[in-house]
C-alpha cells in the first residue's frame, strides 16, 4: 500500500492580470516532513504558500490536504496554522490572548484552552510574559509568540512565511535550531518559505527551488548541492555558488556545453601544470578559509577555497586544475545532462 502524501499540489497556477504568478506547481509533501520553498524574491514561493493556506485561490489545478480536496475551501477549513513574516500579532491583545485567539474563535472550552496555552507557552519559553502586549516584547519574543500561536491548536500542518527575516543574524541561528527541534518533537509538517539558502539547506528534508513562478528543482539539500538540475540551481545553491564554464575553453571536454564546478573541487597548481590559467580578481578572508575569486574569459563565478588566511594579490595569474568527474554538465538550454 502506498501512503497518500499529506499535501498534494497538482498543476496549480495563479496569474495576476496577465502578470506571472505561479505556473505548473506540482508538489507532494509527506507527513512530518520539513519542506522549504526557496528562491529569489518574486519567484512565487510566497504565492505558493498563500495558495496552500487558502489566502489566494488558484486559477488552475487542485490542492489536497490529508486526502481532502481543499482547492476552494476557506483558509479556516484547511486545518493548518501559519507564521507570518511580520508575525501578525494582534497589537491590542496580550501574549496569552494572541496565542489562544484561534481557540477562542473556535469555541474551545475554557479549561482546555488554559491547558493548551500553558503547554504552548512552555514549549516556546514564554512563561511569565502572558500579560505583555506585543509592543512590549523584543523581536525574538514576538517571533516566539507567533510560533506559540501556530502550535497551540495542534494543527498538523504549519506554514511559515520567512519567519526569521526580521531577526538579527545571531538570533536567526538559534531560532532556526528551535524551529527544527519543535517540528521534530511535535511531528508536524512544516512548509517553510525563505530566500535564504542556508535556512533551507540546514532545516529542510526537501527543498523546492523556484524561479519566475516555476519550480526549478525538488529534492533533498544533497540533491540540490551535488546534482543541480540546471544552471540556475547550480548558481543559486551553495556559498560560493557553482562556477559556470563554457566547455570550449577546457581541453578534453565536448564543446557547446556549460560546465559547473564547485569551489572546493578546484586546486591551485604551479604555473604551466594547470588546465586553466586565471587572473585573481578578489580575495575574501572568512576565518577558517579564504575565497579567491578568479577571472577567465568564458567562465563566471570561478572561485578557489584555500584553508586559513591565504590571500593572493589581485591581478596575479595562477593556474588551476580539477578532475573531470567533478564537472557538472549542462546542455545549451541549461539543463543537466544526466548519466554523468
Amino acid at each position, binding site marked *: 500500500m502506498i501512503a497518500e502524501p499529506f499535501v498534494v499540489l497538482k498543476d496549480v497556477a495563479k496569474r495576476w492580470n496577465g502578470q506571472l504568478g505561479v505556473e505548473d506547481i506540482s508538489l507532494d509533501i509527506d507527513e512530518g516532513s520539513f519542506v522549504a520553498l526557496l528562491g529569489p524574491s518574486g519567484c512565487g514561493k510566497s504565492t505558493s504558500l498563500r495558495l496552500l*493556506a487558502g489566502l489566494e485561490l488558484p486559477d488552475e489545478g487542485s490542492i489536497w490536504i490529508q486526502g481532502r480536496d481543499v482547492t476552494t475551501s476557506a*483558509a*479556516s477549513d484547511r486545518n493548518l496554522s*501559519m507564521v507570518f513574516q511580520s508575525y*501578525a500579532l*494582534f497589537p*491590542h491583545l496580550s501574549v496569552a490572548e494572541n496565542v489562544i*485567539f484561534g481557540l477562542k*474563535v473556535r469555541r474551545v472550552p475554557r479549561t482546555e484552552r488554559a491547558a493548551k496555552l500553558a503547554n504552548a507557552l512552555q514549549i516556546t519559553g514564554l512563561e511569565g510574559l502572558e500579560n505583555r502586549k506585543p509592543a512590549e516584547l523584543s523581536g525574538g519574543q514576538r517571533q516566539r509568540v507567533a510560533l506559540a500561536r501556530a502550535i497551540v491548536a495542534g494543527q498538523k500542518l504549519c506554514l511559515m512565511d520567512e519567519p526569521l527575516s526580521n531577526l538579527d543574524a545571531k538570533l536567526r541561528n538559534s531560532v532556526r535550531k528551535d524551529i527544527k527541534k519543535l517540528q521534530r518533537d511535535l511531528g508536524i509538517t512544516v512548509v517553510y518559505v525563505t530566500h535564504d539558502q542556508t535556512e533551507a539547506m540546514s532545516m529542510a528534508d526537501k527543498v523546492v527551488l523556484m524561479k519566475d513562478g516555476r519550480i526549478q528543482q525538488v529534492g533533498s539539500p544533497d540533491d540540490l548541492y551535488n546534482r543541480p538540475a540546471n544552471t540556475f540551481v547550480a548558481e543559486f545553491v551553495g556559498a560560493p555558488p557553482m562556477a559556470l564554464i563554457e566547455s570550449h575553453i577546457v581541453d578534453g571536454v565536448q564543446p557547446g556545453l556549460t560546465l559547473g564546478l564547485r569551489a572546493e573541487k578546484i586546486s591551485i597548481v604551479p604555473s604551466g601544470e594547470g588546465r586553466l590559467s586565471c587572473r585573481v580578481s578578489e580575495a575574501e578572508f572568512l576565518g577558517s578559509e579564504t575565497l579567491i575569486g578568479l577571472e577567465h574569459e568564458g567562465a563566471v563565478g570561478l572561485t578557489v577555497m584555500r584553508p586559513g588566511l591565504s590571500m593572493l594579490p589581485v591581478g596575479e595569474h595562477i593556474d588551476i586544475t580539477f578532475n573531470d568527474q567533478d564537472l557538472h554538465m549542462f546542455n545549451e538550454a541549461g539543463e543537466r545532462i544526466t548519466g554523468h
Partner: protein
Amino acid sequence: MKRLSHYIESAAAILLALIWISPLLFAFWAAFHTTSDAVNFNIMSAWTLDNFRTAWDGAPWLRYFMNTFLLVTIVLIGQFFFTTLAGFVFAKLEFPGKNLVFILVLMQLFILPEVLIVENYAMVSRLGLFDTLFGVGMPYMASAFGIFLMRQSFKSVPIELHEAARIEGCGLLGILWRVYVPLAKPTYLAYALVSVSTHWNNFLWPLIVTNSPETRPLTVGLSIFGAPENGVDISIISAATIMSVAPLLIAFLVFQRQFVQAFLRAGIK
C-alpha cells in the same frame, strides 16, 4: 522682526480667543446676578442662585436632559453600527461599482443638512416616526463623515492581521469584531466626541421634527423657554443656557487632554 511677528501672532490669537469665549463669559456672569446687576456690569454686586431656581422651575429640564441624552446615545449607537459596517466594506471588500458608491456617499458631505430638512421631514413622517427621538436621530445615522473616517482607520490595519485571523478560523464579521473594531478604538473615541457635541447642540432639525415636551431635546426646550412670548429675562435665560451646556463643558474641561489625543491618534485635526 521675527520676534515682533511672533508677538503679533500671539496677541491676535489671544484676542480671537477672547472674542470667541466672551458670550459664554457673559452668560456665566449674567446667570449668577440679578438682571439689573448683570447689564450694568456691577463688579461688586452680590452673586445669586435665584436665576437657576427660577429657570429650573420654568420648564421640564430633567425631561429635556433625558431626551438629549437619549438622542445622542441613539444617534451614536446607530452611527457606530452603520459606519463600522459601511467603512469596513469600503476599506476591505471588493464589489463592482465600489468606487462609484463611495463617491456617492462622499457627496453627502457636500450637502448641507439644512437643505435636506424638508425631504427628511417627509421621510420621517412616512415612517411614522414623527415626534419620536428615534425619528430625530435617524437621518444622521448613516453619516458620510463617519463612514469615511472608519474606512480610513480600517484601511490602515495591516492585511497580515486580517489574514492571520482568517487562518485562525474567523469569519468576515468575526474579523471585523475581533480585529478591526478594537484597533480602531481611538477613531471611535474621536468620532464619538464629534458626534455627541454636534447632536447635543443640534437645534433646527429637532425643532421641526419634535412637537411635545416628551421628545424635545435641550436646545429646543431652551429656545422655547427663552422665546420672547415668555418674557425676556436675560439672567434667567443665561442660567438656563449655562445649565444646558454645563455637562458638555465640564466633560470637555475634565477630559481636555484625552480629547486632543484622541483626535491626534485618529489622524484628524
